[in-house]
């Protein structure tokens, strides 16, 4: 069909935004786990801060993509505000994510560097355990919603049938948690390297836990991707064209190579190998999960890009 159009308006910037929003949102949930289920405040604080920074950088990319970044405030205060717009809903979610995230981070009992420590210790909620836990839960919910919203933003659009499917938010959520987990894995390794030798085994254990989680999340992601692609080979025509673009067309190197192989299959094998050698009684280093983590992050970014670039639409059907 000659009358298929491919959307090209939302490109790399929005892809980065969707990716970072997911990764930061997912990372916050993992931070909560380490804070309030594992009582490892150091890892929790640094992961949560990293997640916050990631989301904030994401928002900056969204702003950079605007034609009038200086008027972004209109999203909240326009006299004609549209509360049903996903951009308004998403901005509200992001705002609450940043708010709860900051409250959570500053509430955790943690030895902050000198000057910062003095300020934070003055905060009335600093070190309050139940407040920490409550804010952690709220920040996690907001993190989940941030990740979910990045998929819904695209999923509600009817212009391209390949986008308008519940599978899209599900895929983005799975990818968000996967990238969030490996993000914390990298934070964990950075802390572990600088930690005294006596503490290293703890970070090694965390590395294995996070690697195992990621392997499960990758399996789910692969299942979603397979189902997504497979079902749309049965039409509609526009979605078939999207599938063609991704699997054998111009986006195939990015999707089949970058996302499926490099970003999912190889990391899964690396993580599986790590788990396997550990189950054999070995004490493997975190090397394999770290390589996997880097690949997963690159793959997650490419995923957002190829989904945006594969929105095919038809404006009219030939009459006969």
């Amino acid at each position, binding site marked *: 069909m*000659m*009358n298929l*159009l491919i*959307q090209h*308006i*939302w490109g790399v910037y929005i892809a980065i935004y969707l990716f970072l929003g997911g990764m930061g949102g997912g990372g916050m949930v993992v931070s909560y786990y380490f804070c309030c289920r594992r009582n490892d405040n150091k890892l929790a604080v640094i992961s949560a801060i990293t997640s916050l920074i990631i989301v904030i950088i994401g928002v900056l990319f*969204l702003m950079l*993509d*605007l*034609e*009038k*970044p200086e*008027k*972004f405030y*209109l*999203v909240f205060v*326009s*006299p*004609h*505000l*549209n509360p*049903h*717009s*996903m*951009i*308004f809903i998403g*901005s509200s979610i992001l705002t609450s994510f940043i708010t709860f995230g900051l409250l959570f981070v500053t509430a955790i009992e943690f030895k902050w560097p000198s000057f910062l420590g003095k300020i934070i210790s003055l905060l009335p909620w600093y070190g309050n355990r139940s407040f920490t836990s409550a804010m952690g839960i709220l920040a996690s919910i907001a993190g989940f919603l941030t990740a979910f919203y990045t998929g819904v*933003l695209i999923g*509600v*659009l*009817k*212009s391209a049938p390949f986008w308008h499917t519940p599978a899209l938010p599900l895929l983005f959520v799975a990818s968000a948690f996967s990238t969030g987990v490996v993000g914390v894995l990298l934070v964990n390794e950075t802390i572990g390297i600088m930690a005294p030798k006596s503490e290293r085994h703890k970070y090694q254990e965390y590395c294995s836990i996070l690697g195992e989680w990621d392997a499960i999340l990758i399996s789910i992601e692969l299942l979603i991707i397979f189902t997504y692609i497979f079902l749309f080979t049965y039409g509609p025509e526009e979605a078939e064209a999207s599938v063609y673009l991704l699997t054998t067309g111009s986006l195939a190197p990015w999707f089949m190579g970058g996302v499926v192989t490099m970003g999912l299959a190889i990391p899964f094998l690396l993580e599986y190998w790590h788990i396997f050698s550990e189950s054999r009684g070995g004490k493997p280093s975190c090397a394999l999960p770290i390589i996997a983590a880097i690949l997963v992050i690159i793959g997650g970014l490419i995923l957002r890009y190829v989904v945006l670039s594969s*929105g095919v*639409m*038809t*404006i*009219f*059907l*030939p*009459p*006969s």
Partner: protein
Amino acid sequence: MTKYGMVIDLGSCLGCGACIAACDFENQTPWEEGKRRTHVPEFIFGEYPNVERLFVPRLCMHCEDPPCVAVCPTGASYKNEDGVVLVRYDMCIGCKYCVVACPYNARYVDERKHAIDKCTFCYNNRVSQGREPACVESCVGGARIFGDLEDPNSEVYKLIHSGEAVPLRADLGTHPKVRYIFRRKKREGD
């Protein structure tokens, strides 16, 4: 109440592009492919010797249920009291969500305005003064018919209510107010 709409008779479109030129001039749109308020893509169907050629002029469909308005966070995109879909340029932050959401590819970024722009049915500059949109007035073949869909005496009302003029992608449920007559003129020997 008025509800403006348009019927495009594909059998009368020559593909000359006068509508594009008139619109560009009238509305001072960017002189750039893909940044026009109306365009006239050509389609070729079938295989030799049964080939058919069709020009399908396009513009904003001024949907009754416009997806672009639904997604706009600031209310910059809106449908006015006469059913025309417009942009408040000063409210538009240029997030481009509407451009991505429009299933008719009717919107573009106007870098000079730092805002999204689109066909206005020439609402402010012509229609509100009792004139027809520039593309309608300039159409050589008389393929574009403009009028009030609520007025039973208007030509557009009759063409639509006779079932002759149909929407594009009715399945999307956007209820476009631009309709098409698909009956095509045939050349000799067909």
